[in-house]
């Protein structure tokens, strides 16, 4: 049905796509596998008219087409569900769909749209409240809206860009029958992922991309998991990956035997009141992190993680309960959000917004937490010699690849930017570390680096609280695991509890 022939796309010196040829069949579910930066997103953007290929052509039903814009893509019957949802939160479900699926300036086309939406939701056995503002919907529901929206605009091809990144294992499982129904209705589904298991369950055929090239196209059952992974990653890293928790890179025992170290951070019955009456984004949370352990907090995004983190950082005052740092029980007011010198390392989820100042140099970013302390400043004056010296040490120690310390940090790759954050936060050997989705957006190599650094800090006796939405990575390096669901924290008996049990707890059905 759809053919991409010899598509190439370069961004400056980087070839994002190199002679990619791909052929999709009607009614098939086709998987595109590849790690971060393999060119999956670029390929999808080209298909959806958000980027334009330098060379090559696209044929739809045997006719050559030029997809110059998303509008053109939609006219051709292509609908896309983006990894980051593209919805207007203040508008209702129906208005959002109207924005995408209706044409013309005047009528939002309510009646006709509702018919089309109902036709699809009936097929998928979904129930959508069309008049609800999107802001009030949970993540899983929003994704359904996105899918229905794409179906209403498209009609021939449905592109799903990493749709499972934000879902629990159970929600992923629930997504499979509807997608099969979509394919059965005669549409082609293009499913992009870097998670092998889902692709194996869902797809008929797969294409594997590596560094912008197609390394394999064919039926899914011709390769086993090991072969697929090898083709995805190439020879750079040994398989199984770090995330495979059977083989931990660090062979330390999961639980410290003998006496427990005193907790470095403790939350006692912490509750936080929400903005709406009667809402409790955090309710009676008890939590402790001890020296030399990694305490993992699992949970689907939006179950109170933000509140938990901001509470620990001192940006939110709990309505009830205490946050206690270290040995002094009354020190909960001395929060790391202030500059009281509490040795806390914080690796935020959104490093671009919260951790880095991109126009500034690597050196300035490395010094961002210590610039005012001795020996880096004297009487309010900066001692740049010391800055240079210290940042050179950190750059060497954490293997930050940059031309020199004066390079703006924004010109570095994502992995190296995260190394700057990790170097700053862990370089001063803090006794307490808070890491939130520290591998988000990183490729396998950089993820492994970050996780190894966390494990190294653990060996040196740091207490680490790891809030992570990637369950597999979380389980791979955590000593203890708790699940945050709907503002309530429950400790699991990991590693005795199974991954599936934890998945159920994340959904609140255990």
């Amino acid at each position: 049905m759809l053919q991409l022939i010899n598509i190439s796309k370069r961004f400056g010196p980087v070839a994002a796509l190199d002679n990619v040829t791909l052929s999709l069949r009607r009614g098939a579910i086709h998987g595109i596998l590849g790690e971060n930066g393999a060119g999956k997103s670029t390929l999808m953007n080209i298909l959806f008219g958000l980027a334009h290929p330098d060379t090559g052509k696209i044929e739809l039903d045997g006719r050559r087409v030029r997809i110059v814009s998303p509008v053109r893509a939609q006219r051709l019957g292509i609908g896309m569900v983006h990894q980051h949802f593209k919805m207007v939160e203040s508008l209702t479900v129906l208005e959002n769909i109207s924005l995408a699926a209706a044409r013309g300036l005047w009528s939002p086309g309510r009646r006709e749209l509702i018919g089309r939406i109902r036709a699809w939701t009936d097929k998928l056995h979904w129930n959508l409240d069309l008049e609800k503002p999107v802001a009030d919907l949970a993540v899983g529901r929003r994704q359904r809206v996105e899918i229905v929206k794409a179906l209403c605009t498209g009609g021939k091809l449905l592109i799903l860009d990493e749709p499972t990144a934000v879902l629990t294992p159970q929600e992923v499982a629930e997504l499979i029958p509807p997608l099969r129904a979509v394919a059965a209705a005669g549409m082609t589904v293009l499913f992009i992922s870097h998670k092998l298991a889902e692709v194996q369950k869902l797809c008929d055929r797969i294409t594997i991309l590596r560094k912008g090239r197609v390394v394999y196209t064919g039926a899914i059952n011709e390769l086993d998991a090991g072969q697929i992974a090898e083709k995805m990653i190439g020879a750079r890293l040994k398989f199984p990956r770090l995330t495979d928790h059977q083989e931990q890179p660090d062979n330390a025992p999961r639980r410290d035997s003998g006496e427990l170290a005193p907790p470095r951070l403790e939350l006692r019955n912490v509750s936080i009141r929400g903005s709406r009456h009667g809402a409790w984004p955090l309710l009676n949370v008890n939590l402790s992190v001890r020296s030399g352990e990694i305490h993992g907090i699992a949970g689907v995004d939006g179950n109170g993680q933000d509140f938990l983190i901001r509470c620990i950082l001192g940006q939110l005052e709990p309505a009830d309960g205490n946050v206690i740092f270290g040995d002094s029980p009354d020190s909960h007011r001395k929060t790391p959000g202030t500059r009281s010198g509490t040795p806390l390392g914080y690796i935020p989820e959104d490093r671009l917004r919260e951790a880095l100042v991109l126009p500034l140099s690597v050196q300035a970013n490395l010094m961002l937490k210590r610039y005012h302390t001795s020996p880096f400043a004297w009487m309010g004056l900066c001692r740049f010699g010391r800055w240079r010296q210290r940042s050179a040490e950190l750059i060497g120690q954490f293997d930050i690849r940059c031309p020199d310390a004066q390079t703006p940090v924004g010109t570095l790759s994502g992995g190296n930017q995260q190394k700057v954050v990790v170097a700053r936060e862990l370089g001063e050997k803090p006794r307490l570390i808070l890491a939130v989705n520290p591998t988000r957006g990183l490729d396998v190599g950089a993820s492994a680096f970050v996780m190894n650094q966390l494990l190294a800090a653990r060996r040196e006796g740091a207490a680490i609280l790891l809030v992570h939405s990637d369950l597999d990575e979380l389980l791979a390096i955590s000593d203890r695991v708790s699940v945050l669901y709907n503002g309530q924290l429950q400790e699991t008996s990991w590693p005795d509890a199974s991954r599936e049990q934890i998945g159920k707890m994340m959904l609140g059905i255990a």
Partner: protein
Amino acid sequence: MMTTFHSSSPLRRHAGRFSRLISAVALLPLTIGTCGLALGLVLSGLALAGYPPLAIVSRWVDGSIGGIYPLTNSLADACPLLLTGLAAGIAFRGGVLNIGAQGQFLLGAMVTVGLSTRWLIFHSAPPVIILAILAGTFAGGLWALLASVLERYRSVPIVLSTILLNFVALYVVRAILQGPLQAGGTPAPQSPQIAPAYWLPVFIPFTSFHLGIPIAFVLAVLFYALNQRTTFGFESLVIGLNPGAARLAGIRVTRKQFLVMFMSGCCAGLGGALQVLGVTHFMTGSFGNYGYAGIAVALLGRLNPLGIAGAALFFGMLDTGALRVEESSLALPHAVVNVVKAVVILLMLLLSAYLLGRKLRTRQVDPSPPGDRGSDKL
């Protein structure tokens, strides 16, 4: 090698409002080229309207730097511009959108006039001068802080509150100039003249080269050092570029921004104080547009105090030279100066946007916009 916090790279991903301007500090040739281009554009426009461009230029040069009087007049005009420019520059660099230099300037001038004419009379002049200047400076700073307080406690965007406060200040000053500070014998809002003993000393007799001019330029150098060498300068830069990261790095953003705002207002207030004591020696209900022009000066100087000094000189020369052109047989309206200033700023915004944009576009890697989390508006 002098180490700076930022590099000249035109980089501005996830960066704050002014990162583009700040990171383009090194683009001096571009700035000078822009000024030239703007002058050229306006002159050709005037040529079309029937004014001979060469005659304008020669009169303008003559009137701005031709001789000791025009030169000192240009310097004297640059002095308030430099201070209001510093006011805007400090604030913008620290991520505070203080558009209220005009109001702060007016209040500073008014308080200084009040003290030195009616409210504070000693037999020896220096204490009066010093106290009047200090009071004018702090009046500007406090007026600026009012906007900070409104933002902190009532969430009123500083952009809007400072603009509105400019008008409030204008009418407050007019009311006082018609009331307690009115000079006898006139119905107009006008203050009495300051006694010559309290005037700022003049270095070259019969010129306007007063003590305030070196004060302003020294202040610019001090602010440059503050920006480049101190932890405070580093903090305010980080806050201006990425307030979220600053907060998490332990910088007390609100407190620093209060301080930045206060310093900014003080600069503007000082500008007003020096202007009345050094140049005008009295005050009327309409007392120039130095505050608004200061914003343009700051932008042209790309928020760098030394650049601001250069820009203030340029604008001062424009103003003084244009007076000569207006008085001459050409009778070119003085308002043309404002056109030149605005065209300079717009051209600079346009050129840096397009030139840097093109440079960036060739290196663009990822066409997909990143996630849409959070926002820091206004």
